[in-house]
């Protein structure tokens, strides 16, 4: 089974960091956020510190 590396919020920052604009949009960093959102955040130097790339799961085994 192939290992999958995903962006994850570092444990110490889960639920503790909020990104907010002035239009009322708020994102609290957590691992519930879609992978594409975390990946986009990781491209920003200001937010990458709060994230890490982790091996989080194996691919699901195929059913016979």
């Amino acid at each position: 089974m192939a290992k999958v590396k995903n962006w994850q919020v570092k444990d110490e920052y889960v639920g503790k960091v909020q990104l907010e604009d002035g239009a009322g949009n708020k994102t609290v960093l957590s691992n519930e956020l879609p992978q594409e959102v975390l990946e986009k955040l990781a491209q920003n130097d200001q937010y990458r510190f709060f994230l890490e790339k982790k091996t989080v799961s194996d691919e699901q085994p195929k059913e016979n």
Partner: protein
Amino acid sequence: MPGVFANLKRQARGNSNLGGIARLVCWAESDITVGWPKKSDIVAGEVTTAPTIVVGTVAAEFVFDKDTCRGKSSKKGKLGYQNYEHEIEAKFAGFDKTQYAAVEKFLNQGGVCVAYHKNGARQVFGSSWNPLEIEDSMDTGIKADDGRMVAFKAKADGFDFHAPFLADAVVLTTDSAAVVPQPF
């Protein structure tokens, strides 16, 4: 058609116009690694860029008492020598070791603050290149109903702009555990 001056009107009738500040977040000057905001960052009264802050840090949340926070931006000086002063003040009930530790951080450290109006508008006071100088005091009061409190006042002059608004698109990084409910 007006000449140099533009028409200046009061707000239209029938709209709310609540005074006071609802929320205050601040950085120490040394949390911001690039001069911010500068006059060139301001377009039509709004700062359109986010501060570049030390990685891994977020803005400090200053949760003050109801009706104690004010932001002021004033132009002063004689013609030819005018400049702007930015000022923030707030009061915090209590007088304990946690507050003491937070206040200690203000020693010889300037600040930059974003104040949230009660309609959600955000306004930047101070800048990392000309930070607000913080005066703080801890007062026991004299009798039971006196304000036993921490008082915070931060100001700086010598700006070449009024305290600017922060464009809605600008994203700030804040401490989600410290944010209290807001009216907007």
